[in-house]
């Protein structure tokens, strides 16, 4: 099957999700172009992560459609979406704490390869995978820690490993859930530079509260509140919009 092509990396059409009476996603429609840098903002509880969870497939919407490069993925399992080029990081760090940084990233690489079903050879014997993993760790500035277990490294470094795991897969669409949360100032600028250096082959959609840093990275901004899209468009237009000030930026 050749997937239908589309100028949009991601299209969300009329998405709805409710937990009981709580409507966390209300009729959300978004179109994100290939290579675009989209920032998603909104107050706590606006439904940002819930939206991500539906895009990645961790959660099923009640109605609506999600299209990845024109392919309807609404009911597709998360791992199938990963194979279509979708990758994500988590707000709460979900790394394999007993394993080394290198092993974590190698596992990330393995996810898209047929050899993940291989029952004879140990993962460490795939030389090219470990090389690739170390190369990716180098780009996030963590090569010197490659052989340390995750449990030994600092929080800010873990966030960068999260990013490395996602980047190693060379995703076509990358969802970043608060990549800057809890980082020190110097770490922020490192991660910011890192995100800025991501190739245009990759569409980046980011949830972030740190507006000073995140706005520099974004071209377009979507403001969510109570599960609805309030404002959506080019960065400066959204920032200048009255409703943005009202809901989010404060007067």
């Amino acid at each position, binding site marked *: 099957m050749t997937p239908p092509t589309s100028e949009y990396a991601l299209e969300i059409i009329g998405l709805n999700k409710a937990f009981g009476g709580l409507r966390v996603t209300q009729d959300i429609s978004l179109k994100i172009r290939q290579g675009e840098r989209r920032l998603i903002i909104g107050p706590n509880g606006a439904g940002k992560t819930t939206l991500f969870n539906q895009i990645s497939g961790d959660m099923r919407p009640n109605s609506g459609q999600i299209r990845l490069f024109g392919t309807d993925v609404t009911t597709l399992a998360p*791992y199938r979406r990963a194979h279509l080029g979708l990758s994500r990081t988590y707000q709460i760090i979900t790394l394999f704490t007993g394993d080394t940084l290198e092993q974590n990233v190698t596992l*990330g690489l393995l996810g898209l390869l047929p050899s993940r079903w291989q029952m004879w050879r140990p993962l460490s014997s795939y030389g090219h995978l470990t090389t690739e993993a170390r190369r990716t760790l180098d780009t996030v500035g963590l090569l010197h820690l490659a052989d340390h277990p995750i449990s030994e490294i600092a929080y800010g470094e873990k966030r960068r490993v999260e990013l490395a795991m996602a980047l190693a897969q060379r995703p076509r669409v990358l969802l970043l859930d608060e990549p800057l949360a809890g980082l020190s100032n110097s770490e922020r600028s490192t991660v910011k530079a890192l995100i800025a250096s991501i190739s245009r082959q990759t569409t980046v959609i980011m949830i972030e509260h740190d507006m000073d840093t995140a706005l520099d990275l974004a071209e377009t901004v979507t403001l969510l509140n109570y599960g609805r899209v309030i404002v959506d468009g080019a960065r400066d237009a959204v920032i200048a919009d009255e409703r943005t000030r009202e809901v989010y930026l404060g007067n």
Partner: protein
Amino acid sequence: MKWIASALLAAFLLLLPLFAGDFYINLASQILIAAIFALSLNLLVGFGGMTSLGHASYLGVAAYLSALLASRYGFGHGMAAIISITGTVATAAFFGVIALRATGLGFLMITLALSQVLWGLAYRMSNVTNGDNGIAGLTRPMPFGILLDSAAAFYWFALIVACFAFLMMAIFVSSSFGSSLKGVRDQPRRMAALGFNPWMIRWITFVYAGFWGGISGLLYVYYNKYIHPTSLSTTSSAEALLSVIAGGSGTLGGPVVGATLVLLLKNYASAYIERWNMLLGLVFLFIVLVMPTGIVPGLAKLTARFRKGSQ
């Protein structure tokens, strides 16, 4: 140091029948069988994070099938073994589909329920299984024309199978598939986001564990030359689970050590106390309190501390 210890252990296992009496040789054979069984359960419990209370199903299905085929339908041992293992794997494949609809406690309860169904069948379908009387008068196979009737011959046979099983399971858990399995145990959501299919990984492991459970079942019925519904009972599953947890789940040595401990207690203590289960319970309690991760990881931690202290 490690090499010397391994060589000594290998020599001990290999030469055991030359210096031990039949009682001990037979005990060793039983330990080997229980070790394969516990190792196979450990693939689920330790490496896959799927705690099953129904693993005796696979031991029992293989044992019953082989017993029935050989004694009632006149199959040769080779053919009977192939059909029994195929049947066991098919059972595991089917049970896996049902049990893996859930995880955690739900999974545990489903495996328990499914194995209870088989136990009930073995008990009540007495026109086929002989019910509570069990199937007696079975024979041992003669691989390559070698008679396995003596304690020593059977022990060596079991030793070969056990070593092979251990090796195969060791390769399995350290393979890249094994890495995916451990990943799914620890972070299923993350693994799915990375492109792994958690359900399929769990199911394949479930079937593979069923296969080795079936192999231990064949050895079990060859050894005893008799099969009774108790081998399908929850007690049988729980004993293996106890071995895995006491020895150290998620380690390769743990289930072997655990199975050894359980069988030694069973054979020695039952000679002195009728309620040997109570003693087993107390020993288990002691292990869990002193070494919550099991004997093997606990001892490893102790020796590491000792080494650090002596430096």
